[in-house]
């Protein structure tokens, strides 16, 4: 006789894990020092304009022209990006990527450009 409980438990655990990883689980991985990092360009209009150019060049193909998300690629206007994540969290995500989820690391862009990009992304909640 097959006992259904272990299989059911495993299924529920897998579902919970899948949900966790697809729902911004990367946020929990950000080290405290990175979480606290501050953006040297915060809210600067020139940085927003430069960040928009960087976004159009490198990010819009996957995340959409207006960062609204394309197919399975997430929207960057979500509450997770705009409210939950600090600028330090976003910097950590850009440097390391989320390679299992298909997001490549962008450490090839110099740090000032990553912060300009973050300045633009954070400005989206005002638009």
């Amino acid at each position: 006789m097959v006992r259904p409980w272990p299989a059911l438990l495993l299924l529920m655990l897998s579902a919970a894990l899948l949900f966790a990883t697809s729902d911004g689980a990367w946020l929990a991985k950000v080290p405290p020092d990175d979480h606290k990092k501050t953006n040297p360009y915060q809210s600067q209009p020139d940085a927003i304009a430069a960040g928009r150019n960087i976004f159009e060049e490198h990010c819009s193909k996957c995340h959409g022209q207006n960062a609204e998300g394309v197919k399975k690629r997430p929207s960057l206007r979500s509450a997770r990006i705009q409210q939950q994540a600090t600028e330090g969290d976003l910097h950590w995500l850009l440097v390391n990527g989320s390679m299992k989820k298909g997001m490549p690391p962008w450490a090839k862009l110099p740090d000032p450009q990553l912060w300009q990009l973050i300045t633009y992304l954070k400005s989206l909640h005002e638009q």
Partner: protein
Amino acid sequence: MRLIAFLSITFLVAALPAAAQERPYFVTYSHEMEEPGNLDIEIFNVVGKPPEGNRFLGSNIEFEYGVKTWWTSEFYLDGQSTANDSTIFTGFRWENRFRPLLREHWINPVLYVEFENTGADKALREVVGHDGAADFAEPNGEARREKEHEMELKLILGSNYHGWNISENVIATKNLSNEPWEFGYAWGISRPLKLAASAHKCVFCPERFQAGLEMYGGLGDRYSFGLNQTSQYVGPTVNWSAPGNMTLSFSPQFGLNDYSIPRLYRFGIAYEIEQFLGIFQGKGN
């Protein structure tokens, strides 16, 4: 007429968005992988003249595809043209690069595996063993009789620090016929001319240019490891991320000993197609 054509192309290119962000190396690999779904088409050329041979142009066209964030696959077609001799197709290569660590570290390793089937190749995409200027002086008819079926392994190490990229490659090559393992190395260092991006869209802003230095050479083989009778090259290198997803690269390189070709001039053009398979799925996104 040429000026009009040049200006037309310049304005056409200036109207397109840009995305490519390649390192300016010709031989050295950095740890950065192709973004998943993107196809990079690259043409690299090298012009040189061995002291006792004819001037040559070695070329290859590469198709580089990002399979996963941690896996890039690349297919090359090689050819060469030698003055007072002939123009020939020299073979193909297929390489795969794997990034085992899924986060950015101080030093990021990438494993590289390549199968190569070439003969009379003059593209000089790596220098190993006792490769030297004399190999490039052989007439094509003779050189292409010696087919190289090679397996090549590389350990690629790369770091990004304050805008600088530092990349080191250790190369081991085995001709699948009965020949010993041969070794080589390459390293490069580069940096964009400006780290922050401009607020306005521009074509010739300094952040679109990267400059650096590249050095590479052979390290002998299993029975005679070292620098003795090996060729060594060094040179400055620069690239420009042009609008329209294009990158143009140039590097004059200099042989450091009599075993090397005195001067090499390398130039390349790369064109990136973002989300290549998406093109066939209707909307491109």
